[in-house]
């Protein structure tokens, strides 16, 4: 498994989103052009994700 610090920025974001969704029991492959509305993400979830991206 890759360490986050070794990943490219795009892959870091994909991993954060995939991990976030997995915690919501949403198991699907996330691609860069996916519409995350379809995965049920909300504006409040975006706060969590942006904060995680900032701290990655």
């Amino acid at each position, binding site marked *: 498994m890759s360490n986050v610090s070794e990943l490219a920025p795009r892959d870091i974001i994909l991993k954060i989103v995939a991990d976030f969704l997995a915690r*919501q029991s949403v198991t699907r492959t996330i691609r860069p052009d996916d519409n*995350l*509305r379809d995965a*049920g*993400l*909300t*504006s*409040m*979830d*975006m*706060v*969590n994700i*942006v*904060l995680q991206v900032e701290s990655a």
Partner: protein
Amino acid sequence: MPLDPSVQRFLRMLAVGGFPTASEQDPGAVRAAFRRLAETVDVKDVSVERVEEQEIPGPAGPVPIRVYTPITPHRDPTPALLYFHGGAWVFCDLDTHDGLCRTLANESGCRLVSVAYRQAPEHKLPAAMEDSYAAAEWVAKHARALDLDAHRLAVAGDSAGGTLAAVVCQLAKRRNGPKLALQVLLCPKTDVSADTASRRAFASGYFFDRATLAWALKHACPSELDLTDTRLSPLLAEDLSGLPPAQIHTAEFDPLRDEGEAYASRLAAAGVSVRYTCHPGMIHHFYGMAGIIPYAQQALKDVGRAIRQALA
């Protein structure tokens, strides 16, 4: 004063991608999303002496409560602070307000009783009000057994929970119920039917918006409940005299700011002792985001210390 920089940052994150807001979702989705948000933005790692879960009798069955014993309480018997969380009577719970309650318990020196009143849409209003009132009655009645000072029982709440705290005070007066020593209202709704300048100025883009309030009322209010009912809109009660001393907090960029200020003014005009604070640069629910808004950390501590002083 402009928006606080950390609040600006939060609002920008909230708007990233134009994802659905609360009013575009069902209650279950909003509850889950708010729980996830609270895990990030509520203040964390606040140690208290003890946390106990229990249930107390309510008008329609058991009401769960969580009791926080502060690290440095007032001398025995300890004053009690009954806390009603916000969430538009539809979302939030004991967990979303855990860090806030821990902070208030420690800073106030009170044993804090956080109440999981029934929520809509499963339980329409006024179920939340009746559970909250029942909790106040129960704590007052069992004060001695809980080693609490029945003469220093305060109520507090935020947003819709602030409404509950205000309504519990009004019901206690009307029903000759428990003697309450203090009411602490954080950004309360005091008139759900209001059309104030702050509601118009901050109708959208400031986290808690007009659409979310309308969504909440749609889910929470049965058709027969008038929005001017004083259990929903305590500001509209005719007589506010004889109510407990009040500490009322509003936020500068909150749609509910003006009705909170109006309640403070009406209480003062009725002869009630009032301490009113409008927090500059803040938005609704800032007190619940002390994990990412540094101002909120200090403000929450100050709220607790003011309670400690008032109950000394």
